[in-house]
Every structure is written in structure tokens, then in C-alpha cells.
């Protein structure tokens, strides 16, 4: 039990906040009936087993593999830290890391702004709202492989739809997926097209969670539209924003969009300009049969993601921001 007078290293009193949080946790603790516990195990069990078999076990195996040289043909030898030392000196790894970072930053920032913008536009009911939301959400339910193929056709040099559309601007000969200067930007564009509808839905849910009374009170106080957005919507959306940031960062670095879309649309080319970390891991594992090195890169990627999410959690207190939320 932390005494109420406990102070932190800077001398600030923290006892009150901690003890009130502790009280809340204690009041939430409830005794469950055995049948309820059984039901919980029954319902959560299949998911837990699935996670254990297909996520946690492979993840632990990958960590173990990172310390071995594995040929992929049954030959193993202990490698110690050599795979990690190799990473440090591998220019293609650093190239992939940079591409993943640029892609993630561009994607997360743009889809956040666009997703939120679309949510603000489609929050309130208007004629045709369902159609608009459906149209915006539809790309998200289409397979990324199909989307990759579709955009390859649309963006074909000289004869594609984009070439016809951009001909008046003299851009018909631009190879959006074949030119290293544009390929990564094009993938960001396609990703935003796919995911903006999904994040719009998440933001709409967050917006609808804000009580109307806040806005009514603000209107009575003469708050402008911008002030309502700045002082009511934005702070109230912080948990939703946290969720969007967290999931979109992970998706951009290690999700299907970082592999499926890239693999189908560019295969990491041209000239490695879209080689993300996950496509590089794939190349090492399945083209070079260097499973140990691929696992070591996966571990580095995992640690990087843990650090980023850890920082996010720390800065936002686990997405709660403060006790008033």
C-alpha cells in the first residue's frame, strides 16, 4: 500500500492520484461464478490457442533462429551474434529500414489527416451518407493483391488510365511504379486510398462518442467552429487518435500493406526503391534460404516496433492520457 504522502523524485506528491486509482481498481474487482469462468475459458480458449500456435510460438522460434545459421535444407549451426553484426554492416538492410521509415511516416501522417477529415465530413447525417461511406470504405475490403494488380494496370506508362488522365499535363510517360523517384510515393498514395475509409470509420466512432452537450454548451458560449474542433473534438478524440496511430504505425511497418501490396505492385523495385523491411526479410528467407539472418532482421524489427509503441504508451499513459479521460 503506497502511503498518501509518497512523493516522486522531484518532490511532487503522487499519493492521492495513486491511491484513488488503486481504489478504482479494487472496486472493479469482482468475483466470478465458476460457470462464468468456464464460459470465459471456453470462448477465449480457441483464440488463445490460435494466438499461441500461430503467433507467439513462431515469434519465439524466430527469436531463437536469429542466433543460428539456417540453410533452409535442414542444416543448422549456432551463430551467436554474428547475424546481428551482419545487420549492422548490411547496406541493403539500412536501405530497407529507411524506406520502411519514410513509408510509415508518410502513410501515418497522411491517413490520419485524411481519415479524420473524412470522418468530420461524414459524421452528420445527410442524403446519400450511406453510399458515400460505403464507397470510401470499399477499397478496404478488397484484397491487397487485387489492388496491387489493379493499380499496376491503371498506372501503366503510355496506355494506362492514369496516362490518359494526365496526358493534358504532359505526364503520360511517367512510370509511377517503375521510376524509383515516384514508386514509393505511389505506394503511399495507393495505401491511403485503401485505408482512409477504414480509419474514417474509426474516427466516426470516436466522434459519435463525444456527448452533444459539449457542443451545445460551447455554442451557447459563442465558440466558433474552429474552437469547437480545437477544444472539444480534438481532446475528446485522443483515445481514438492513439488507437489509430498505434495500429497504423504497426500496419505500415509490418502489416499486409508493407508486404502484399509492395510484392504485387513492385516486388521491392525498381532498383530496391520500395524494398521495405518485410520484403527484405522475405527475400533473405525465401530467395536466399538464409532463415537465420531473416529471423535476426525480424527480431530487430520487433524490437523497433516495441520501442515505438512503448514510447507511445508512455507518452499517453497507455492511451488514457490522464485520469480525467
Amino acid at each position, binding site marked *: 500500500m503506497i502511503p498518501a504522502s509518497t512523493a516522486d523524485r522531484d518532490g511532487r506528491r503522487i499519493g492521492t492520484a495513486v491511491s484513488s486509482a488503486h481504489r478504482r481498481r479494487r472496486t472493479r474487482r469482482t468475483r466470478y461464478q465458476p460457470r462464468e469462468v468456464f464460459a470465459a475459458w471456453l470462448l477465449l480458449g480457441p483464440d488463445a490457442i490460435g494466438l499461441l500456435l500461430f503467433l507467439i510460438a513462431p515469434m519465439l522460434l524466430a527469436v531463437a533462429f536469429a542466433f543460428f545459421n539456417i540453410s533452409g535444407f535442414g542444416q543448422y549451426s549456432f551463430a551467436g551474434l554474428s547475424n546481428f553484426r551482419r545487420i549492422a554492416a548490411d547496406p541493403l538492410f539500412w536501405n530497407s529500414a529507411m524506406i520502411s521509415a519514410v513509408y510509415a511516416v508518410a502513410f501515418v501522417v497522411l491517413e490520419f489527416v485524411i481519415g479524420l477529415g473524412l470522418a468530420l465530413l461524414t459524421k452528420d447525417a445527410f442524403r446519400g451518407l450511406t453510399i458515400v461511406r460505403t464507397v470510401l470504405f470499399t477499397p478496404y475490403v478488397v484484397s491487397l493483391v487485387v489492388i496491387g494488380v489493379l493499380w499496376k494496370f491503371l498506372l501503366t506508362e503510355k496506355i494506362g488510365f492514369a496516362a490518359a488522365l494526365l496526358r493534358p499535363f504532359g505526364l503520360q510517360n511517367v512510370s509511377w511504379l517503375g521510376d524509383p523517384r515516384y514508386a514509393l510515393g505511389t505506394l503511399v498514395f495507393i495505401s491511403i486510398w485503401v485505408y482512409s475509409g477504414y480509419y474514417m470509420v474509426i474516427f466516426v466512432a470516436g466522434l459519435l462518442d463525444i456527448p452533444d452537450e459539449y457542443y451545445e454548451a460551447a455554442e451557447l458560449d459563442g465558440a466558433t467552429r474552429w474552437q469547437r474542433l480545437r477544444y472539444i473534438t480534438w481532446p475528446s478524440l485522443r483515445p481514438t487518435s492513439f488507437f489509430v496511430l498505434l495500429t497504423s504505425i504497426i500496419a505500415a511497418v509490418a502489416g499486409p500493406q508493407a508486404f502484399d501490396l509492395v510484392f504485387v505492385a513492385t516486388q521491392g523495385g525498381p532498383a530496391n526503391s520500395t524494398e521495405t523491411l518485410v520484403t527484405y526479410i522475405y527475400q533473405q*528467407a525465401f530467395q536466399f534460404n538464409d532463415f537465420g539472418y531473416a529471423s535476426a532482421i525480424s527480431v530487430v524489427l520487433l524490437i523497433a516496433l516495441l520501442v515505438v509503441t512503448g514510447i507511445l504508451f508512455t507518452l499517453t499513459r497507455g492511451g488514457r492520457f490522464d485520469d480525467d479521460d
Partner: protein
Amino acid sequence: MPGITASRAEHIRNQEDGPIMTKLSLPFPHAAEPLPTFTRRQLLRAGVGTSASIGLATLLAACSPGGGAKTSHGSSGTAATGSGPITLWEFYSQEQPLLANGQWWRDLTASWNKSHKAKVVDHYVTNADYSSGTALATAFASGTGPDVFLVSSGDFLKYYNGGVLADLSSHLTKAQIADYAPGILDTRTVNGKIYGMPMEVAPLAFFYSKKALDEAHLSESDLPRTWDQLLEIGAKLTKPSRFGLLFDTSVGAYQNFTWYPFMWMAGGDVAGPGGKHSTFDSPEVVSALQLWQDTIAKGIAPRKAQGTNGSDLASNLLSGYCAIQQCGAWALGQGTKEQIAATPYGMFTLPSPKAGAHSITDLGGWCLAVNAKSKHLDDAIDFAIWATADLSAAGVERARSWAAAASDISTRLSVRKAASEKGDMPAGLTWFQNVAAPGGKAEPRFPPQVVTAVSTAIQNAQLKGVPAKTAAQTASQQIDAFLSSYSGGSIAGSQPLSV
């Protein structure tokens, strides 16, 4: 789940035996009605039912042959157990449309199974998955690799160094070995032992659209014989809706395969004799890289091929996307009759750097290999040799029908003679055999790391605009660094083949 945020899900739990209710606030106003409620008993019943269904499905899948893995012929794609059939993996026999080369594999296994006790099960893998996907890698990594499978020259050392290629030498007779054209078996031989049965020779050449040539008021005598002429004619054939020329642009072993002839014609090579050190930073290599860069810089070649890649004639030349395309003999079998009628095409040999020099092509092709860890090793080797090197009349006909179905040149002398006597060899294939292939070199075999270094150099020069000299030097350093500690199967550089 899209549309429902966790923060909006409020669980209202009855302390006693009342119903467990979940109140969900949905983002769409019209969908905000409360969800149906369920009693705990109903939930329990549903949970038990679902778990039982999943468990039963898993059990059934596990008990079925191959654990539920579907193949084109409805059988397991995993390696056979000691008592099971011999598994064969190939990438031709797709269901729709089943082409002649796919039918050949089906006939092959049917014919073998009819006359042999050890049965073969044919497993189709898509070409993309076979060439650059995970199918083979995961199968071998999990110890369930196929008993018999196809290997390209580019991948030969990967499998040899992995110790999964069986030595076939002792099962081959001298007569069978002698039936192969000189040099053909060398690319699959390490330390005097043969590890793969070459199935075909696939030379590269340029295909051109006769219509495009006519439109540009050019005749066959104008077809390029030098690199300068290639760039010049390519520019003349380029128009707003079509490229004049197409080289492959996809990263990987296939692009390297198509680029090697230009390097050889300039007098360069990837590695020195014995494959001990790099020779990639030579002026000859730089000039070949420069040629490919020029085609992009001048706007006469696309940065991205249509369809599969540059090996796809139907999606590129026949669709009107380009007027000249570098491709292999296999392309003779591509395209519908309508497409070929609409875009009649011809072929010409790869131009050389200077007038009067000989054209050199790359002679690629796949071989049939046997998994050294197969539980049916002897039967699998017997099958692979029966399928490719059988000297009987039926065996020669089998190999001849494969060359015809695959639109490639046979690797065996007796088969070429039989094809010639039969007189049904397509005119295009005869041209490839008599004009394009002579003087060609076997596709070199390199470890994946060397393939990647070369590939990166080609990509950087061709598509990124990196100076050809810089691209070559960087790759050369990478190759040297790798070769200094390489201890696998011998690297076979450019070797002339007798075709």
C-alpha cells in the same frame, strides 16, 4: 472490427444469473439499435457448438491425405512417406487453361503410373510461387520437399549447396550421357557428378512486330545488327502509345539471364576462371549496362513490362505495348491465334556491339532434379531418368513431345534427330535451333548472393540512372566480398554450348 471501437463497448453484467448483455454504440446512427441479447446458456451452447465444429474440422483436415493441402489433382503436395507415392512438383499443369506443356506432365505421370509399381503424384504450383515464392523453400525447410522437382540454372547452386540434390550419375548409362549435346550436362555437374537432367534449351532472341515495322516504313533488312542500330530502330518504332523496344525490368534471376548475352558480346563476364574473383567492374560489363540504361534514358523502352514480366510476349509485343521485345523460344507458344493474326511477328538475333561481330545468346532451361533426402530415392531417380533420358523409342518420343509442347530445343541429340525426321517442328523453333542458338552460352550458375549483386547493378543502371561504371564497381565489390569466403559448389560462368 471496423466500426466498433473498444472504448464504446460497454459490458453490462448482471451480478446474478441474468443475461449478459453487450451494448454497442456504432458509428452509424442508423445502426445504433441495441444488438440482440443472449442468455449465458445460449452463449455457452453456441461456444460449445463452435468449438466442436472447429475441432472436428481440424481433425478431419489432419486425417485427410496431405492434411487438407489441395493440389491440382486432388492429392497431397507434401513429400511422400516411405509407403506413399513419389511426389513431383512442376508449374505447368494448371487447370484453366490446360496448355500442351501442362498436358504433357499429366500424360507423363499417367504413363509412368500405368507401367510402374511406385506411383507418382503430380503437384502443380503456380509459376510465380515456384520461381520466386515460398512453396519450395517452406517445403524443404520443413523437411517435406518434393521427391522430384524442377530446378533452373539460376537456382541450381542454392539447392546443391543445401545438400538436397541427389547424384544421378550412377543411374545413367554411358549411352544416355552421350545422347546429350556437348556441354549440356556440364551446367548440372559438380565434381564429375550429375545432379539434374536438363529438359530443354531455351535461347533468347528479339521478337518484332511486322506491322510496326511496316508502319515505320522499315523492312527486314533494316533490322538492327549492332547496339547503335538497336537504339536507332527502337527510337523510330517508338510512338505515343507504344514503346519501340522492351527489355525485362523485373528484379531477379530472369532479368540477369536476359542481360548476360550483352555482357558476353561486349567481352565481359561476372567472375574470372573458376569463379574465384569478380571481373564485373570491367569496361565491357559497363558498356552492356550502359546499353540498357540508354534504352530507358532515351524513352524507347518502358520501365515496367506488362503481364508477368519481359518473358510474357502476349502481354507486351502481341498487345501492342512494344514493337520489339527480347524473349526466349518458349514465347513461340504464347498468344492466341487471334492475337498472332492481329500482330504477326518475326525474330532476329541479339545485335552485337560492333558490326560484323558474332551474336551470342543465353541458353537457359530447367532440369529435373531428385531430392537427396527422398524416402523413395531409387524410385524417384528412376522416374526422373525415365522421364528425360530414356533411350527407347517411347522415351525419345516423350522428350520430343516435351520440346514441342514447351516450344524449346531438346537437349538430346537423338530427340533432335527424331524431331527433324518427323518434320513437324514449327518454323520458329527451327529458326531458334539453326540461327539463334549456335554460338550461344549456357546460362551461368551463381549462388543467390552473386545473382543479387548483378541484379542490383542492372536495376541501378537501367532504372535508377546510376552511372554504369559506379553500378558495376559496387556489384564487383559485393561479389568479391562474397566469393572470398564462398565454399559451395563450383561456380560455372559462361560456357559455350553445342546446339
